[in-house]
């Protein structure tokens, strides 16, 4: 077993929309949702297949390399593991839902009807992976439209397919660079904006934008603190001087020459 980060390659040209991945996911996560009722991601459906004309697109957590959700979570309840999965530790969570607000792929879902709610999202079958198994969806796919492997070998495979059959593919591997790169890699026969992928996405991780602001904190504390102290000292000194020089001085009366 290599410890290289894992990925999945999802080839939309191969997907026939059978939904085997969705069912396998429900089973692997002990969810009782009826497959026919799934129209969107939800706390009861961590992946599903959406229809776009005669094309089928899987929705699931992208498991970003520098995830937005892990950067915004105030208590580090979401973590990127070295093996690839972005996992959620419910016992740390305070329920602020900043992860849901921030995720550029709108993936995290919430248990709105629970008294003790948590965030729900695809965990890349982290527990199965730890047992040496592949993610349930990849195992279940009859067309090898979703395949599991290391990110390095799957990226190479994606580019090999683009080169070998340029007529069948839109020339882009979605996830190679988006928001700093993702563990899920997509190939498509048409441009990705036709398939409701959130575009355009910057190639830099979104966490860099908030960090740009947070990195000023030490300056505000030190320079700001020093300036405030200086202002306090100067104005106090001025008040003292004014008091010593007599009440007339501070009122500007001495300008008339009547200084005592």
């Amino acid at each position, binding site marked *: 077993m290599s410890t290289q980060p894992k990925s999945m390659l999802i080839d939309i040209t191969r997907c026939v929309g059978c939904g085997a991945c969705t069912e396998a996911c429900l089973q692997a996560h002990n969810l009782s949702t009826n497959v026919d009722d799934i129209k969107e991601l939800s706390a009861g459906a961590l992946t599903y297949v959406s229809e776009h004309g005669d094309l089928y697109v899987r929705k699931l957590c992208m498991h970003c390399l520098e995830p937005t959700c892990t950067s915004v979570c105030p208590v580090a309840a979401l973590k990127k593991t070295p093996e690839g999965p972005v996992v959620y530790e419910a016992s740390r969570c305070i329920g602020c839902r900043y992860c849901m607000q921030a995720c550029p792929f709108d993936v995290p879902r919430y248990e709105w009807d629970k008294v003790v709610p948590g965030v729900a999202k695809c965990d890349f079958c982290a527990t199965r992976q730890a047992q040496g198994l592949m993610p349930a969806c990849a195992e279940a796919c009859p067309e090898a439209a979703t395949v599991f492997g290391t990110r390095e070998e799957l990226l190479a495979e994606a580019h090999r397919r683009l080169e070998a059959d340029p007529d069948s593919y839109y020339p882009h591997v979605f996830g190679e660079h988006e928001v700093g790169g993702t563990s899920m890699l997509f190939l498509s026969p048409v441009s990705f904006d036709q398939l409701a992928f959130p575009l355009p996405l910057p190639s830099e991780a979104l966490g860099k934008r*908030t960090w740009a602001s947070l990195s000023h904190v030490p300056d505000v504390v030190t320079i700001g603190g020093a300036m405030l102290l200086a202002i306090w000292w100067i104005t106090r000194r001025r008040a003292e001087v004014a008091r010593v020089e007599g009440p007339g001085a501070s009122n500007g009366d001495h300008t008339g020459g009547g200084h005592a």
Partner: protein
Amino acid sequence: MNGIKKPRFGFWSAVFWILVGFGVATGIMRFTRGLGSVTNLSDTFPWGLWIGFDILCGVGLAAGGFTITAVVYLFHLERFRPIVRPAILTAFLGYLLVVVGLLFDLGRPWNIWHPLIMWNPHSVMFEIAWCVTLYTTVLALEFSGMVFEKLGWTRAVNIQHAVTIPLVILGVILSTLHQSSLGALYLIVPGKLHPLWYTERLPVIFWLSAVCAGLAMVIVESRLSARALGRHLEVPIIRTLGRALMGVLGVLAVFRLRDLAARGVMGLAFHPSYEAALFQVEFLLGIVLPFVILLVPRMRRSPKGLYVASLFTVLGFIANRLNVSITGLEASQRHYIPAVGEVLVTAMLVALGFGAFKLAAKYLPVYPPLPNVAPPGTVTQLRSK
């Protein structure tokens, strides 16, 4: 006079108890059946009125606390001293209500203390959690002076006096950090937030507008408490505050226009769109109009003119925060209108704020002793004691 006043008091306390009753009932629903039972929040709109108003507006409107304490204790502008305690009281109550609002909004409110021991320094929310915790503590300590004085605990009063300057400095730093960071929260959603509001300058805009809102709130509140408590307005102080407000509003207006121009999205403000309409409300009614009112010397000098300008500033500030947190995200997420339950909880928090302020003003030495109603010349003498 007393005969007329009594029924008025009865009316407002009836309103108070009705709002609290509905709020508590909604709270019971929320904590026994989950957030979904009383809110219109959903997977595609996870932050609603409670974040947009109770948190973002609550914190911003309490900014008078750090501005006025800085003016009095750090800049030694002694003539503002009569309003320093009301400003501290408002800020302290404001932050307490923000915390109560958070307890409603957080999915697992019993874990609210987790950021103190489970760190993620890369999270803006983590920084805000720390700042709000520390600043609420600072405000409690600043507020404690009034309680100690009331109880006649001379030693405690002296200790509190001795630590005032460090507390005020800490308060200004913490406020600057988290007031701006509330804007930085939204730096993470470049693809979702409408370009009229998404800008890397959000932190600065949030800080500047919070200063405006804080000053305006002090003016609004001194008029309201003057009417409710039968006190005279500190007119000369309020006039000076009005001039300061005019200055900061001007800076804010120029800063925001320059930001729109620099990003090349000025035209969007004139498109016939839902977003542009609400942007105009926020900008024209909430920044330009109060600025123009204050520009007129006659208005700037009259308590009523100052009050109206400040009221527009406060409403414009609220519009801005709701635009950033709700309007600007609707196109990319989905249309959101708060549920009745969300409105009821928010109304309860506002009612609690008014009620607590009234109680504190009645039983604590919030305002200087009454002779202060004398003309400004005598005020200085009073304070020297």
